[in-house]
């Protein structure tokens, strides 16, 4: 186990920062856990591969085309399948549908690629530089873009959500859709904008990850559960902390991998975070509130009269 191992894990986890941000945006907006959303990354990555490697488009056009297609697909999916659940506040039914949608996407992609892993040939980024301590690895363009997403995208998104008029409209719709409508906010437009943004972020994550590590039908399946774990544990309204948490989780996973005899625990980190998050939100917090209420009452009763 070394610093290089930890830094390598942190770097790899930064690839999921855009997906976490997108997921949190959509989760807060819709009031459910859109487990299907990270699969927009899978679709976008495979579309980028198709455009660049099969159709012969140039690199920039392929990436932009795949990014837009990922976003549009996300909006279509939301409008067609999930908008009703959001309006009726049905997080469970939406989650089940999300699981089914993920399974369909994963299997369709698997069937079309015969289950084999693919790699970009013409679109492979040429820029690379050997980086010494603390990484001891070759730094490539997708690595830099992911780091940029962590450094720029997360704060920018946080700012726009919390300190702009559009962000205010987003928060109003997320908080109470009907009340927001009554106050003249166009909830449908906010819906489209948020889901397009969120699925584009997931698409960006998928494309970057595929550029660096190759394409597999399951490339966003396991990360999706890690993203859910972070969103549940931290809360979808805390964008900056969520982005940091997913990176930290990647570091912990890699640390586990580095400890002899504990390599298998690497796969359990995300699930443990999810369990802790669920238990903290729904078991410990209500208990704490009840205890605080009892203590508050006792203190109130102990107060001298007059």
């Amino acid at each position, binding site marked *: 186990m070394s610093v290089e191992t930890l830094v390598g894990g942190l770097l790899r986890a930064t690839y999921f920062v855009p997906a976490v941000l997108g997921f949190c945006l959509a989760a807060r907006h819709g009031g*459910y*856990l859109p487990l299907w959303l990270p699969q927009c990354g899978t679709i976008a990555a495979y579309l980028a591969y198709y455009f660049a490697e099969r159709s012969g488009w140039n690199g920039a056009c392929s990436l932009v085309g795949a990014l837009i297609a990922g976003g549009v697909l996300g909006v279509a999916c939301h409008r067609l*399948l999930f908008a*009703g*659940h959001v309006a009726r*506040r*049905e*997080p*469970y*039914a*939406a*989650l*089940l*549908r999300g*699981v*089914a*949608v993920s*399974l*369909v996407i994963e*299997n*369709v992609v*698997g*069937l079309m690629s*015969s*289950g084999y892993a693919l790699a970009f040939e013409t679109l492979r980024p040429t820029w690379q530089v050997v980086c010494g301590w603390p990484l001891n690895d070759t730094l490539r363009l997708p690595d830099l873009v992911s780091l940029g997403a962590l450094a720029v995208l997360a704060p920018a998104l946080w700012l726009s959500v919390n300190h702009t008029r559009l962000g205010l409209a987003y928060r109003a719709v997320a908080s109470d859709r009907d009340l927001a409508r009554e106050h003249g906010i166009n909830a449908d437009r906010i819906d489209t904008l948020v889901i397009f943004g969120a699925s584009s972020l997931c698409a960006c994550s998928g494309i970057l990850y595929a550029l660096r590590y190759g394409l597999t039908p*399951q490339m966003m*399946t396991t990360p999706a*559960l890690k993203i*859910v*774990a972070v969103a*549940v544990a931290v809360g979808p309204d805390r964008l900056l902390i969520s982005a940091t948490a997913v990176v930290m989780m990647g570091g912990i996973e890699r640390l586990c991998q580095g400890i002899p*005899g*504990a*390599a*298998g*625990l*690497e*796969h*359990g*980190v*995300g*699930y*443990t975070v*999810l*369990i802790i998050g*669920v*238990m903290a*939100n*729904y*078991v410990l917090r*209500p208990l704490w509130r009840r205890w605080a209420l009892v203590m508050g009452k006792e203190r109130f009763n102990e107060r001298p009269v007059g």
Partner: protein
Amino acid sequence: MNAQWADIGVRTLLDSSLVLAQVLILNRLGIPFAAITLFAGLAAYGVATALHFGPLLFILAVALSVLLVVVFTALVRALPQDSYLLLTLAMLGVGGALVSASATLGGQLGMSSTSSVLRAQEPGPFLWCAVPLFLLAFGLIWLLERSQFGLAVEVARMARQEKQAISLIPLWPITALVFFIASGLAFSSGAFQALYTGRVDPNVFRIENAIPLLVATLAGGRSPWRASAIALTFFIFPDLFSLLVGYQRNAMAQVREIIWSVAIIILAEKQLAGARIVR
């Protein structure tokens, strides 16, 4: 050829028993539980360790299953349905991680579970175990439709949807009993699967295996006939098609999952498993 059919029969019946066990919890009781393979995995490792180190570890696996049933039952009221579903999947994931980290249990490679009594990969004797287990699972769901306990389970399911009614119904004992029955079925299925394959590995706890099972369960509904028919069709489809048409089994499994997932996407509109949200 006969051995091949028997092999398909054993695997299909054991997997279908798992689906029927999950139907008891998810569709009859209305609890969003997706980790029935957790009990099957525990049983598989229980059998394997018992064969290697003695029966005490099998008892430990049983005790662990009982503890999990108690935990899952206790958490039903506290958690919203979506979080409960994710929690069960997360428990499965943690189980897999713990098993793959343990050198005693063979790590990621797993360990042998061959027995001298029931020889692995010989489907004949296993059919005598798989058929009664499947019929037992079927019979239990059938009984729930026709017994007073089934009525109690139905009332418990409906009561869970109305916050005011929860305090009027003895939810805990009903939930615990159904959980115990379902986990017992899953445990037996897992034990037979371990003995039949002759090897267990952390893949038994994989979420990727639990999700198709969840899809089959959701599609199965509450009727014992429909659930059994769908479970049997679901698991026999890849083998049957690859045997008859010659396609790859994996590709057929993918086609199967696409078909049933699309069915779930369509069915979700009709409030799957009678699930309304009580927060």
